[in-house]
């Protein structure tokens, strides 16, 4: 594995499977009364959030604390583009404080890449979402959720998603989740189809390892998982689509459409959902919808990533957990 996790495209198939397998072990920890591992005791991780995202920050924080790391939360909201505290200044401050890893969320595409590659800081950098570029841990937790549901919790160990048909629906143009998922799912052998109005598909998509369709109804019957992306209402003001109603009629997932999916197929959403826009309440609350599981899986996957990036050659997760059990 590389030293940083900036893009889902940085991961090989074996890297990704190792992360998913490790995450399964981490998930077992969550089922125990004491949910803590001593693995990262004495290590300091900074959650550097230039963009507000309570959900993602809490997920990383939970993962870090379960691994016994010391956590610094640094919210630099609003200062990304303004001439306040620059990314570089912040990075150098963290470097001076001796942090062992930085989890960064930033509104500007490429900010984590710059942080990792500009010599401003030495610690491993984990991208927690940058602009409309990448959100690799989201893609990993999505893949983890799919493998569990479509292959099986134990049966899935060591396996990828070969041959699974995954449909991603919505605002692909502005979505780091879509970009990360296309990269990772392709690496894991899945067949990805993007569905969106043409206005919300980027020019240049033709080189992506996936299919593009403008018709949700045609793709649904051939999907093992359907991932609905959040669509911001404001997009209609920039003429990406005429009205909210027309969008949800053509690209929203309601119960009637869900019924056209194969019986085993699941509905996913990275959250936060806009109910009534891309997804109806009925679908969101159905047991085929994995939104809540995705949140829980997010912690396990982030534990796995932190462990693998920071734990280095130390024993696998099971070893320290056994030690802990003897205490």
């Amino acid at each position, binding site marked *: 594995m590389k030293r940083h996790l900036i893009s889902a495209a940085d991961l090989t198939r074996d890297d990704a499977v190792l992360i998913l397998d490790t995450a399964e072990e981490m998930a077992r920890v969550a089922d125990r009364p004491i949910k803590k591992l001593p693995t990262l005791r004495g290590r300091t991780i900074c959650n550097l959030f230039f963009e507000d995202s309570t959900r993602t920050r809490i997920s990383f924080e939970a993962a870090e604390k379960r691994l016994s790391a010391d956590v610094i939360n640094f919210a630099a909201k609003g200062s990304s583009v303004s001439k306040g505290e620059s990314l570089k200044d912040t990075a150098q401050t963290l470097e001076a404080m001796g942090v062992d890893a930085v989890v960064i969320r*930033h509104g500007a595409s490429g900010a984590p890449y710059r942080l990792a590659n500009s010599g401003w800081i030495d610690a491993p950098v984990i991208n927690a979402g940058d602009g409309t570029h990448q959100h690799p841990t989201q893609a990993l937790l999505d893949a983890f959720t799919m493998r569990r549901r479509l292959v099986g919790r134990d049966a899935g160990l060591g396996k990828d998603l070969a041959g699974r048909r995954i449909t991603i629906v919505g605002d692909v143009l502005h979505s780091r989740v879509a970009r990360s998922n296309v990269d990772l799912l392709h690496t894991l052998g899945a067949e990805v189809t993007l569905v969106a109005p043409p206005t919300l598909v980027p020019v240049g998509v033709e080189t992506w390892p996936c299919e593009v369709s403008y018709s949700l109804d045609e793709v649904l019957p051939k999907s093992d998982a359907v991932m609905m992306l959040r669509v911001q209402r404001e997009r209609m003001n920039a003429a990406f689509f005429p009205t909210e109603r027309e969008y949800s009629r053509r690209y929203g997932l309601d119960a009637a459409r869900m019924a056209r999916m194969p019986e085993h197929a699941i509905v996913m959403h990275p959250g936060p959902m806009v109910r009534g826009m891309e997804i109806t309440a009925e679908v969101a609350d159905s047991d085929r919808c994995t939104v809540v599981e995705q949140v829980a899986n997010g912690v396990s996957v982030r534990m796995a990533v932190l462990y693998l990036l920071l734990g280095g050659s130390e024993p696998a997760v099971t070893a320290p957990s056994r030690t802990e059990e003897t205490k």
Partner: protein
Amino acid sequence: MSKTLIRGAKVLGGEAQDVLIDGETISEVGTGLSADGATVVEAAGQVLLPGLVDLHTHLREPGREDSETVLTGTRAAASGGYTAVFAMANTFPVADTAGVVEQVYRLGKESGYCDVQPIGAVTIGLEGKKLSELGAMHESAARVTVFSDDGKCVDDAVIMRRALEYVKAFGGVIAQHAQEPRLTEGAQMNEGIVSAELGLGGWPAVAEESIIARDVLLAEHVGSRVHICHLSTAGSVEIVRWAKSRGIDVTAEVTPHHLLLTDELVRSYNPVYKVNPPLRTERDVMALREALADGTIDIVATDHAPHPHEDKDCEWAAAAMGMVGLETALSVVQQTMVETGLLDWAGVAERMSFAPARIGGLSHLHGRPVSAGEPANLTLVDTSYRGVVDPAGFASRSRNTPYEGRELPGRVTHTFLRGRTTVVDGKLA
């Protein structure tokens, strides 16, 4: 009067000749000229060009003296072999009055490294709403003939039409920065395969091409002359080629960086590659080279755009757009146009000296033939030189070059401004 003999230089890349400078003027060109009483510059193997003329320079003064001043910018120009530069109007305050253009003109005179010809803003404050006093700027001491809102596009079709018409009265020309503003809201890089992957706002080629298409048609309609700044796409080339074939009075420039670099470099997210118009694709680069060779594009202009370190040492979206270029332009042209066989040195002289002086109305002073009786504005180039670009050695106040660490050919050894050396043996005099 001091005399200088440049001995054995290949004039415009042709036969080796001696050039004798007497005072401010070339007094003799020939072989075996007497060195009596003259300082001798041994130039065997080197190429002698007319002093280069840059139609598109940002000198930043007044207002952004932290990135460049007229003095540092003209020193950079001299280092790059230039004897005249046109200073863009997007300063603070904007060069939209006779007072500001005269100030820049005077600062240029004081610097002594390179002539500075101010460009006036087309509209007040570059806001695209009301015409600046174009006539007053033309009649000022600065004698402005080129007008541009560069940095911004004159996007209102009526304002553009009126500007094109109005400056005909005194032989002026509008230099358009072709960028349809609505199509480029939030734009960060060329829109295409790379922007799709990187998640950076796309800057479509059509945003440039649609304005150029409109403006050549406007120029035809009102019988005016229009100049297109930093043309960057294959489609723009096609439009200009079509316009010229129709007899429309259009000229166009290309920057050195658009002749060499592509949007693939943006994958590094290093803002040193962030520029307006953005770096395009390999296909565009090849089309631009071909167009510069066949005359569709008339000239090379640097769009020298200095920025302080902190404006580039940040994340891509927060970074300023632009690159310095005066000190590397000739080397990039040598690599992309001469060493590829697309242009000979006479062709370079046409595109970097004669034509820009003509377009800018400066050909009574610059872009003159290398012959007896002409002003001694000359550039001597060691074309066999190979060196790695080190911005620490730049004369410019800014270091935002995309070529750091890159090997480029050629080096300006001497620059003469009206007979006086501004560069000697590769160093500023």
